[in-house]
């Protein structure tokens, strides 16, 4: 978490950009990723992402770890069946019973690459943009202020609740000798979840009162201190030209 905060303020190329320009161009690249049918196009986008992360001083290992952790969990479950059920030219024949087709392999790799690129773009955006600036950018794009406020508070309080939950685990461990059965663990976990939920509800009521006490009346007003500079226009121009080339490549 602390590393993430530090990266947002590192003297990298993406950190210097206005979040509105960055957000809009990253969304554009995510859309292109979704449209791409060619692995080459997706490989070029990935190369661009890695180059940008390098220029933004994001450590490669840290960056890849954050992305690759999710790929097997969320994508493999969907991609692996495609290897076997997609009809087409056989690529690997396992004793004539299990056949992986060329089209199946292409579909699976395409899916994994799309997720890899989209996730990388999202992670790179978050790593190089302070959360508050990202929220202001979302507000600028007319996302309702209430939604922006909820996003901001979720981010703020998730760490507090995480800390509370962690303390509960430590308190349990400090009073524990030996080990518990699976059933006992599940029972304790259910109680811990219920307690955390009750605490979060109380916290949300108190936070609401704290907001009202400082003038909140149903709409959150935030300070817009963003400004587009020359380098932002250069970035947007570069991103648009790259996007057009990629779209041209998709239609070839």
């Amino acid at each position, binding site marked *: 978490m*602390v590393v993430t*905060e530090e990266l947002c*303020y590192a003297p990298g190329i993406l950190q210097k950009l206005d979040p509105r320009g960055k957000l809009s161009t990253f969304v554009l690249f995510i859309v292109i990723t979704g449209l791409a049918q060619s692995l080459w196009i997706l490989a070029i986008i990935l190369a661009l992402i890695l180059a940008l992360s390098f220029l933004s001083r994001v450590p490669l290992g840290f960056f890849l770890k954050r992305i690759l952790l999710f790929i097997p969990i969320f994508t493999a479950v969907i991609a692996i069946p495609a290897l076997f059920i997609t009809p087409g030219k056989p690529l690997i024949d396992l004793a004539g019973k299990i056949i992986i087709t060329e089209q199946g392999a292409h579909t699976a790799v395409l899916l994994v690459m799309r997720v890899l690129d989209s996730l990388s773009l999202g992670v790179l955006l978050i790593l190089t943009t*302070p*959360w*508050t600036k990202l*929220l*202001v950018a979302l*507000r*600028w794009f007319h996302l309702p202020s209430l939604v922006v406020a909820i996003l*901001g*508070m979720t*981010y*703020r*309080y998730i*760490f*507090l609740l995480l800390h509370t939950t962690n303390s509960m685990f430590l308190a349990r461990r400090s009073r524990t000798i030996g080990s518990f059965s699976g059933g006992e663990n599940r029972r304790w976990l259910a109680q811990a979840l219920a307690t955390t939920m009750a605490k979060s509800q109380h*916290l949300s009521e*108190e*936070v609401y*009162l*704290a*907001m*009202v*006490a*400082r*003038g*909140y*009346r149903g709409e*959150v*007003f*935030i*300070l*817009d201190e963003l400004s587009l500079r020359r380098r932002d226009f250069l970035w947007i121009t570069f991103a648009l030209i790259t996007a057009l080339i990629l779209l041209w490549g998709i239609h070839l």
Partner: protein
Amino acid sequence: MDNVCFNHRINLVVGNPFMNTLDTEHIFQVKNLSYDYPGNIVALRKINFTIGPGELVALVGANGSGKSTILKLLDGLIFPTDGELTAFGQVLSEKVLKDGYFVADFRRRVGLVFQDPDVQLFSSTVWDEVTFGPLQLEISKDEVVSRGLEVLQLMNIAHLKERPPYLLSDGEKKKVSLASVLSLHPQVLLLDEPTAGLDPQSQGNLIDFLLQWADKGKCLVFSTQDLDTVEEVASRVIVLGTEHTVLADGKPEEFLFDPDFLLGANLIHVHAHRHKELTHRHPHLHGHQH
């Protein structure tokens, strides 16, 4: 954003029907006020007091005596179950606090600092915290920035401006909590246990600051169990009993040196403690009788 925020500023004085009837003699008048939490849990029973401009009032009482509840009532966040509470001569009710003119003016005049900084600090950075209040009251953008910078300097926390609140120490969180309310430029400051959880130096700094702030003729109402803070800051004490009623209301010196009264109000205690080689038991009141 600018258009959304600032183009429809409210003129809070001209055309405000409530402003014509403002009572400047009394800030708060509490008459036979009772408050129950859901489930008929008694918090306060038939309490009465009046608070005027420039008073430094300490709300003192044992745990659960209703101190925090009074502060929330005075700030118009919750409303009496029975009895009446007026602020600047206007009865505080849900209906009145839905009036845009009155609520904006009331929130400018009265600021509440919650006991738990994690409740008070809900924004993503310290800068967002100190500008939140003025922005909600639709004060001009330049003024918001000016006030934000002013309170950061005042509380010596300018170096924390871009930091997220969850990465701050407890002492820093308290300072930011106070700064987030001071940026409203309130006439009345309500503080819930301001010195709780602070180290002795931070407590001393906070007391220094509160006394300087109050020197400008402003009104301070704070809850505490720390009798040293009461003696150093308050010009008046309201003592709440375990029966959720007002036990006493007067100058600090009338109560702080009366061990029998303090024992009865659960504010001091008889317990064993050490004096060098001697361990003994008696009513224990640091800084006063011993």
